[in-house]
């Protein structure tokens, strides 16, 4: 497909920064009577203090437990009885809170976000209740299922040395249980000032009316000091690192490997070829590793390559990694799988891409970007993430052109960096094999 025919998403964007430092982003689109509201706070798993693993995520739960003017449970009820849905999530570099609502509930959605930005209601009872809920969340998502936390919680300690990058973001039960109301209040005061947040609103509204609503709900929140954003960078690995773990529930072995990549924000142009490379390697039956490991060698049942431990290439800061993961047959060792993958990386690095390969992979990436931003919520979140992590929501609309500028040589060069002596490997042994 010729480059010129690739369409680009296009949304008018309105920016405004309130006096208290809250950055506001509006993306009006009147095609359906729905709105998305999201607040991104610039604090995540990497920012939590030592001895407080899992605190950023626990705190996210506490932000739903009542606020300046509202009792516990009120937030949920106001959103849902308006015909909307809500959630929040904790990432390495940010924590977000969002609603999608019929457009007649926009003012209500903004009020709800402003009310908890003003002050969450953190009580001993709610804290104990949510520690119990989070422990069940960890049990259902990690401890009670095979491959729980593989590899997003298991690979970072191999790939990184410092606490912010290496620790378990879901948290240790001992750390979680020792959290106090004072910790939570202090965390809120330091990390949740308006100036540390981006408010993104997309969908069916008039921008002037929406700005007036935003000003009305958020404008009188007092400014507080913005916390400094720590530098989490670490030097690249100086040799291969390996670790193995036994998963008592897993019926088949698995392996993951990670390679550090260029700074996703500071060196975006150097990072983007790795995004393309990940797709060349594992998107669909025509991808390099599917052909080699699944179809030819038949050592692997399922595999993936992707950027960033949490799988979203555009909402993570440095340092991060290109991750390869595979569930493999018990008859093949992790090294058999890794060696074959290395041969494919070398082939790419030596021979380059095939005619048409770059174009078709680009078409797929673009289609995925569109699919992600078709829902108003997906658009709200993507714009907020680009605004917060990259400082420019416009990057969403510029992505097709940026992808088109990635050359075959850059992808080839990126493949050449996936060497064994730069990788961190996690082997997962199948303790549950019968």
């Amino acid at each position, binding site marked *: *497909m010729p480059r010129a025919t690739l369409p680009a998403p296009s949304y008018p964007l309105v920016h405004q920064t309130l006096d208290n430092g809250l950055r506001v982003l509006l993306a009006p689109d009147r095609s359906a009577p729905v709105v998305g509201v999201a607040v991104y706070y610039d604090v995540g798993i990497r920012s939590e203090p030592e001895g407080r693993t899992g605190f950023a995520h626990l705190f996210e739960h506490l932000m739903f437990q009542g606020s300046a003017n509202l009792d516990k449970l009120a937030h949920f009820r106001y959103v*849902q*009885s308006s015909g909307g849905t809500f959630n929040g999530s904790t990432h390495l570099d940010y924590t977000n809170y969002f609603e999608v609502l019929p457009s007649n509930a926009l003012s209500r959605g903004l*009020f709800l976000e402003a009310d908890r930005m003003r002050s969450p209601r953190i009580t001993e009872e709610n804290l104990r209740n949510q520690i119990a*809920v989070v422990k*069940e969340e960890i049990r259902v998502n990690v401890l009670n299922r*095979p491959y729980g936390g593989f590899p997003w919680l298991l690979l970072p300690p191999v790939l990184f040395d410092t606490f912010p990058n290496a620790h378990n973001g879901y948290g240790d039960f001992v750390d979680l249980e020792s959290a106090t109301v004072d910790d939570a209040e202090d965390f809120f005061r330091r990390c949740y000032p308006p100036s540390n947040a981006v408010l993104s609103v997309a969908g069916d509204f008039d921008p002037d009316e929406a700005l007036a609503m935003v000003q009305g709900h958020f404008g009188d929140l007092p400014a507080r000091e913005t916390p400094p954003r720590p530098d989490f960078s670490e030097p690249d690995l100086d040799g291969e690192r390996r670790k193995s773990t036994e998963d008592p529930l897993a*019926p088949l072995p698995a392996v993951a490997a990670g390679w550090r990549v260029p700074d996703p924000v500071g060196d975006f142009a150097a990072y983007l070829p790795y995004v393309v490379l990940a797709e060349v390697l594992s998107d*669909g039956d025509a991808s390099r590793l599917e052909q080699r490991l699944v179809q030819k060698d038949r050592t692997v049942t399922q595999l993936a390559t992707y950027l960033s431990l949490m799988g979203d290439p555009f909402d993570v800061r440095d340092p991060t990694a290109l991750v390869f993961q595979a569930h493999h047959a018990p008859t093949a060792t992790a090294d058999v799988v890794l060696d074959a993958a290395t041969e494919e990386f070398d082939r790419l690095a030596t021979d380059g891409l095939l005619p048409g390969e770059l174009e078709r992979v680009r078409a*797929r990436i673009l289609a995925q970007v569109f699919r992600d931003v078709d829902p108003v919520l997906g658009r709200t979140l993507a714009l907020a993430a680009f605004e917060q992590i990259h400082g420019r929501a416009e990057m969403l609309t510029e992505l097709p052109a940026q992808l088109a500028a990635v050359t075959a040589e850059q992808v080839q060069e990126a493949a050449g960096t996936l060497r064994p002596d730069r990788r961190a490997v996690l082997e997962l042994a199948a303790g549950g094999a019968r």
Partner: protein
Amino acid sequence: MTAVLADGRTPSEIVPALGPVPRVKQPTAAERTLPSGLRVLAVRRPGVPLVEVRLRIPFAGTAPTHSARANLLSNTLLTGTERHTQVELAAALQALGADLHASVDADRLTVGGTVLRTGLADLLGLVCEVLVAATYPSREVAGERARLVERLTIARSQPAVLAGEALNRRLYRDHPYARELPTPEAVNAATPGRLRRLHAERVRPVEGVLVLVGDLSPARVLDTVEAAMSSWAGAGVSRQVPPLPPVVPGPTVLVDRPGSVQASIRLGGPAVPRNAPDYPALQLANLVFGGYFSSRLVENIREDKGYTYGPHSRISHGVAGATLVVDADVATEVAAPALLETRYELGRMATLPVRPDELEDVRQYAVGTLALSVATQAGLASTLSGLLGVGLGLEWLREHPRRLAAVTVEDAFAAAQRYLAPGGLVTVVLGQASGLERGLSTLGPIERD
């Protein structure tokens, strides 16, 4: 919420009221039944320059080997045709910006995906090629067979899958719905020849439904479909899904999963399909009970007691009938109290009418989330494909808010009495049996799976 604020105002005075209800614009649509019998529905939903495609073919079968063959067929449908190898096909799809998958369940085979608007005609051509000329090459079938067995092994190590299978065995007994996931033995016995025969008999357009939603012109796209898919024709073998057996309540079924650190609690019972007169009332009663976050069950066993991350209650729709399914994964030591509270909330639904404000809340939620779910290309395509597969369609979507608006407290109470009464449901608990047996047996008789 009755709290009074420091300045004397109540939350209802400070939380912004809702504006006038926005009008939902009905999308333009066109429908045609092709000479082959294939029913095609095209709906315009621009926004992003993509088209979502869902082809649904009835695929139920009663033979014990059917599920294995159907699953392997769906996994190998895209591994080669008379004209293209697996890799050539995948590369051709990728070049269109397309993603195409085949999947199967107890009712249907679905071939679905997404494509950049500019590649729709070519995508339909490739879909037709697969439907007419899939070859099920021996080498690819052997590879996919081994992968399917391994994937089934992984699936059956997941507590959610195991608990779901145990519940289905208890609910559906000899019905094919009880064996939706195949056994490894049956998969290993499925040969390329069997797949080709199954394809020849069942992958036919006669009862098929093709839904296209996206940046398209509905009338024009029907011509595109007809031109691209004309070579897919011919009669096949029709098979009816047998009716579901009656649900027989009985002892709580305890399934041992050594090493489990949670108990996976599941309750199930009969429900009604979306076109039943009491469906809207059941839908709303179920929401009040456990069907959304602000439900009684979430407020009780999560937000009050912290027993679980997320309990759910939903109505699952199959061609043979609908089923109510309640699930909660809880710490082993609180399994009995969590089950007790779940039954208490069910019992409260079935013995006392819901409050009018609870009913209004779920009504707004049901109407609002219906609009949200069809506000995206993918959501609308999947919803319509599901509706058309059971003889419903766009008119059901259009009319449903009105049906929800008409539900009274009495209607919701009647539906709850009929479908949510705990005495009419079956219960399955999966976990470390030694830590569960004593607590659960205090609530009533238990039996081992």
